[in-house]
């Protein structure tokens, strides 16, 4: 009898849980739809001609597939996309390499004053970009870097240091010391240990660091706009804004504006989509280390 009661209770619980799952799925779908609806309209509008966009029904999604907008938009922002690739490649090459070497030293080498130096890195996270914006601009002018690639590359490599060193260090620490020692006994120099032993073992986090740098370079608008005089050197966020504001009102130029947005974000979404697993893990781990 008691057993029967038990079964009944459990069945009730299961039914309740199934109802709960149903409403959770509905809520999740609703939230996803709300998150993506501006992007859906952006994509739909980017494929419509000017006339259709001005007079047609905007809610008629994906009723026209006019690729001409993309051709026009591409010629407007292709330079800034290429600039971004160049700046990102150089910044990542410098930033990730330097951070990996520093993080390896923090993780695997003992030296006097290490904790003090490491505290200096953590304190760095307290310095907001708004505090350094003006003096960095003045410093770059002093160096003669105004309107040059170095004015982007060096600060990008530098500002990525605290976060990258923090997340790299915690992964490098998990490489067993014995593995490193045996490599050293085999006659490997320290840089060879880092390059041949540590780096292959920690590829995901190095990749995460690269992706994080690309995202922030892609999204940076203020710094290129301030430090570069020629708009032909703008990276993608500033270049996109420059192009869009040169077009004037939204609908007069049809979907060209929307096509430019799509072109600007497509490479980044592709990069992040492919590396999503690492990126989400690394970002969560990094933020909790803070």
């Amino acid at each position, binding site marked *: 009898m008691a057993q029967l009661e038990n079964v009944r209770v459990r069945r009730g619980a299961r039914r309740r849980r199934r109802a709960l*799952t149903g409403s*959770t799925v509905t809520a*999740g779908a609703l*939230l*996803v739809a*709300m*998150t*993506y609806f*501006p992007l859906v*309209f952006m994509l739909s509008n980017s494929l419509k001609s000017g006339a259709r966009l001005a007079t047609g029904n*905007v809610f008629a999604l994906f009723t026209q597939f006019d690729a001409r907008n993309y051709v026009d938009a591409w010629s407007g922002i292709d330079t800034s996309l290429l600039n971004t690739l160049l700046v990102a490649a150089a910044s990542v090459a410098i*930033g990730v390499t330097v951070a990996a*070497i*520093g993080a390896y030293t923090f993780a695997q*080498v003992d*030296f006097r*004053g290490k904790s003090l130096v490491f505290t200096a890195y*953590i304190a*760095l996270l307290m*310095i907001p970009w*708004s*505090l*350094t*914006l*003006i*003096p960095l601009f003045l*410093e770059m002018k002093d160096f003669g870097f105004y309107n040059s690639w170095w004015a982007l590359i060096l*600060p990008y490599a*530098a500002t*990525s*240091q605290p976060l990258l060193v*923090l997340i790299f*260090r*915690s992964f490098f*620490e*998990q490489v067993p010391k014995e593995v490193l020692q045996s490599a*050293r006994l085999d006659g490997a120099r*320290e840089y060879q240990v880092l390059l041949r032993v540590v780096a292959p073992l920690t590829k995901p986090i190095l990749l995460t660091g690269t992706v*994080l740098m690309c995202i*922030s*370079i892609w*999204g*940076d*608008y*203020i710094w290129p706009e*301030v430090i570069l005089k020629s708009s032909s050197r703008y990276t993608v*966020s*500033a270049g*996109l804004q420059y192009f*869009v504001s040169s077009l004037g009102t*939204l*609908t007069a130029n049809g979907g060209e*504006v929307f096509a430019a947005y799509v072109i600007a*974000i497509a490479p980044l979404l592709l990069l*992040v989509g492919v590396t*999503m697993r690492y990126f*989400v893990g690394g*970002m969560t781990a990094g933020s*909790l280390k*803070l």
Partner: protein
Amino acid sequence: MPLAMAGGPAIGTPASRTTAYPGQPHAGLARTPPARKTRRGPLARRSRRFGLNRAAAVFVLPSMLLIGMFTYYPAVRSLIGGFYSWNGFSAPQYVGLSQFNEYFTSPTFGAEAKNVVLLVLGWLLITLVAQFTAAEVVAHLPRRLGSIAKYLFALPIVLPPVVLIDVWAYMFNPTDGLLDKIFNAFGLAGPNWLGNEHLALVSILLIGFPWISNLGFLIFLGGIQNLPQELMEASALDGASGLRRWLHVDAPLLVPQFRVAFILGGLYMAQNFVPVLLLTNGGPGNATMVPGLDMYQQAFQNDQYGYGMAIGTLLFIAMLVFTLFTMRLLRPRT
């Protein structure tokens, strides 16, 4: 600027030194003392020699040099620069505290302070509620659906802010914007979002609706998924459910996540003037003027670099106070 979201403060202790695979090789060595002696000798000497090798610290130098030149030096220069009046050409002139005074008594100071406080508080309220709700929903989805939803919410985090702002500029457009069309579909006239002084600040906050795709979502989701399973089952058996369980079991355990999300979100909004710069430039009137935009305009449009750095310093102090206050308020209970 790069890694703006990540450029939060240091919260709590840094990653503690963890040795992975603890004990295994050591234990093996310890069980055989003779072998240990012969094998450990050179190893230990070698590692001690390396450990004491000061030259090893040289490896940190490239990284130190970068942050020294491009973060620490500008920060110090900014803190000093506020005391000098400088237009970028003639010699800087020491003016003491007068530029700080000038800012406090400037006609826009009241509006700027009010707007930035409203923006930060409003932003924290709506984003934390949205991100936490979404994280709870995703955590309770069936496993496969849950991981799909997680990636779908995480993907827009990487959108460049300019694109998001521009797309919302299209939504707000009073003549053929999307929101206007939606209002029209219901037979209503849409408001002039950015042109109305009562709505402009709200419109700035509306950008990014429903505010889920942010770092905070991933932080909360990680926290919820790491809640101790036994505790959840025990509280379910005790009949705790819904809001009660959430309030008494989940929320207290997630205080560290709330703290990180609170500080990151607050610091982000306190200095984020790009939407204002692109959409309203502080207007209508001073309805959306914020300290960051004032700083930007003083330096790069009026050539008042010293005055700009004074505003930057004050903003920095306000952010520091906010961070320390939050860290005390949301202290993890032990």
